[in-house]
């Protein structure tokens, strides 16, 4: 539709002056705005009871920082990679090492199902620190987070950047989809984790606490998406209530940075990998 022409008495200069003053007024108004937050809607939801989560398994075997891990679909095996150059497949339940190999531990091993797809994208964006595939029925998108503070959603087929979110104040170390695929969480060096809704195209929650001042390196959701597990550079794992925005638990145990957390496919346990060369299973 066409724009309105200048009315009589208006000049570009006068309009600009007016728009500047209106802009100021808008900024004032904006400050007064009370946007509705997710936690307000979640007020009626029952508070979570105290969670009792403890280390149930300790996997020792790497000679250096454990950087990555992920679960196998069978819910008890997992694969981990380390700066020691080894990739180990464990039966985490029995603590048996099923397979060890040395190599460069590329991220293709994380996602057994679509290892090929991951590889073809990793090469394109040098500063991507994390990516996750959408669990949606059309299954064609993935989200990436990087040291440019941005989280981007991509179309796998066209390579197009569909959506972009930039609200973190520092590098995004990890991104993970919410179980329904309609949202995702991010972990950042700015010591916060955030929750973004893809349909509304915006950030909907920030998980932060004054006492949490170290960078967050990794996140994953519990099976129902109600809990968000986040690993930090202060060796801890914080457990957040996704809906209410509050922290429900802190997990201590690792003796160095937590590099990766992953909930098992059936949701029965959480695995954490650390620079202290160990992996822990929490339940």
């Amino acid at each position, binding site marked *: *539709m066409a*724009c*309105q022409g200048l009315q009589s008495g208006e000049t570009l200069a006068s309009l600009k002056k007016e*728009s500047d003053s*209106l*802009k100021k*007024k*808008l*900024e004032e*108004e*904006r400050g007064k*705005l*009370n*946007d*509705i937050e*997710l936690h307000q*809607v*979640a007020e*009626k*939801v029952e508070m979570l009871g105290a*969670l009792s*989560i403890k280390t*149930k*398994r300790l996997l020792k075997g790497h000679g250096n920082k454990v950087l990555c891990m992920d679960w196998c679909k069978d819910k*008890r095996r997992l694969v981990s990679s380390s700066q020691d150059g080894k990739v180990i497949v464990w039966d985490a*339940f029995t603590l048996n090492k099923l397979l060890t190999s040395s190599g460069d531990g590329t991220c293709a091993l994380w996602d057994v*199902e679509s290892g*090929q797809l991951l590889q073809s994208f990793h090469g394109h964006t040098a500063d991507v620190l994390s990516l996750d595939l959408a669990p949606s*029925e059309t*299954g*064609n998108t993935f989200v990436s987070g990087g040291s440019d503070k*941005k989280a981007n959603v991509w179309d*796998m087929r066209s390579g197009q*950047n569909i959506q*972009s*979110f*930039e609200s973190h104040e520092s590098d995004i170390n990890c991104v993970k989809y*919410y*179980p329904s695929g*309609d*949202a995702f969480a991010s972990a950042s060096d700015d010591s916060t984790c955030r929750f973004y*809704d893809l349909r*509304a*195209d*915006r*950030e*909907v929650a920030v998980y932060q606490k004054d006492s949490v001042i170290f960078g967050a390196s990794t996140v994953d959701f*519990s*099976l*129902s*998406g*109600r*809990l968000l597990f986040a690993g930090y550079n202060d060796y801890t794992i914080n457990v957040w209530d*996704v*809906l209410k925005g509050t922290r429900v638990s802190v997990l201590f145990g690792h003796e160095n940075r937590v590099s990766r957390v992953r909930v098992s496919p*059936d*949701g*029965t*346990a959480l695995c954490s990998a650390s620079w202290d060369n160990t992996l822990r299973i929490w*339940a």
Partner: protein
Amino acid sequence: ELRNGKNLYFLLYKPIYLLIVAMQDPDMGVKMRNQRLLITVIPHAMTGRDIIDWLIQKYNICEEEALHVGAMLVRYGYVYPLKEPRSLVLRPDESPYRFQVSQPPLHPPAIYLAKKNIRKQGELMEYEKERYSVLHKRINHTWDFVVMQAREQLRASKQRRKADRIVLECQEQAYWLINRPPPGAHNVLDMGLERINNSSRVTLVSDITFLYFLFVKYSEQYLNHDPIMQGCLPSNPWISDDTAHWTMNAEVVPSPTRLRVERWSFSFMELLNDSMGRREFMTYLEKEFSAENLCFWQACEDVRHGENSRIIEKVEDIYKNFLAPGAARWVNIDSKTMDKTLHGIRHPHRFVMDDAQMHIYFLMKKDSYPRYLKSDLYKNMLAKAVVPQETKKR
């Protein structure tokens, strides 16, 4: 009204801005009511007839012109249809419609865009963002907590859930139609020369509180399935050292657990993600003589996720079995999709079957899946499903 500090927007897009705001005025705007959609009630909806009548009255125009304006509103996504959402037209009858509240005119981003990748050229980008923040607040009055609480009370009823699903699906359909128009359809977002990081997309959902509501409901639905939150039966193997839970939930079991079978009813994707659910569904489809749909879908999945080296071979098989004239398990795809697929097959790649696969997927989802859930096959499965006894922790 025109000159007050909030209405900066009129400088560029006065006609559209004024129209949308006027339409949504609680007193003088289009009549909003609960609309019946089959047996469901959707709140805060309008009929096509009401919209047209309102436009005629407001602008003192004839029906033909009002129909044109109304058609533009739907085509550009300001208003979306609840019935037949795939067809973006404004019907001057009892057909129900709702506002995509935060609709932008073509160029500026919608109210909920918090992202910073908006092009910095021109000051108006900033204003546009702010303008929509104000609009959002006004519109929120029509979707405030009173309505939310009423919805919560009705939460238990199936009709309520169905309304959510319908509304969201309609919004989604409208969104995809506008942002990914079907082949041959006019792309209303086409603005000539391609811009990098074009931020003129129609943002999907207006009611952010509605989305929050969906998160709450999702976590409630899955609560019993989340072992870290609620425990699992008979016990969590990691805690009790007893692997019975895994044995009972293995891929192939004579008798699946109740939670597992229930989960198949949460969404079509849940059913397909479980190999046992998929097998049951296949059995059902065989009775309906439409098993070729699921076979086709599985074959397409295999192409998408399989080895590069076997793509050509697999695509050839799919053509032979499902697409060729007179194929043994011919699948019913619309002619446009079929043409596009057949053309693509000449140079097969990983995603060449995507359109056809999606067509069949949605066909099963909308048609066979709901009927499966109502079938004796599923109901019996649910009835004889196992509920394990809880074993105490050691």
